[in-house]
């Protein structure tokens, strides 16, 4: 049987590298992934938050951050976000 990579194994491989997190709402985060748990709550470092509003995109810089997994929609490993 071909070996398969489970989704959370893929995210585990991303620990230490940059990751792009897209939320269910018009909000995105990029940062260096330090860790995560079974709920996909994520600890990120050197974070930039992007809030997409009708007025444009608002950027916020953050330090070490625990992001609640409840509203996470998609994870893009190795990407530095909407501006890359």
């Amino acid at each position, binding site marked *: 049987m071909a070996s398969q990579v489970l989704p959370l194994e893929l995210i585990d491989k991303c*620990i230490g590298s940059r990751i792009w997190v897209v939320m269910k*709402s018009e*909000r995105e985060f990029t940062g260096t992934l*330090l*860790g*995560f*748990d079974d709920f996909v*709550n*994520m*600890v990120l470092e050197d*974070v930039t938050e992007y*809030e997409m509003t009708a007025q444009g995109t608002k950027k916020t810089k*953050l*330090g*070490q*951050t*625990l*992001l*609640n997994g*409840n*509203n996470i929609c998609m994870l893009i490993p190795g990407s530095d976000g909407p501006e890359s």
Partner: protein
Amino acid sequence: MDDSPPPPPNDAPDTQTPPPPQQTSIHTGSPTDFLKGVVGKKVIVRLNSGVDYRGVLSCLDGYMNIALEQTEEHVEGNVTNRYGDAFIRGNNVLYISAAEAI
């Protein structure tokens, strides 16, 4: 019957045994470790509504229920309220960000 003598005890010198893991505040990066590290530090808590609460994290639990001290409520960058103590129910929390070095 196997009557061979038991293997000799491992009499390697004590310097060979690895030191016990350091149980200090070193965090491995998991959410639990992060939360242990930020208690007592200044934090920014953003709710799903976009409102920020900045203050000293006094305690929290696995639901991300949070008790803050010296809390400032920020709406769109402006301070709108100050509270000595504030409790935030965890389901509203978008993120907890350290506002000082952990």
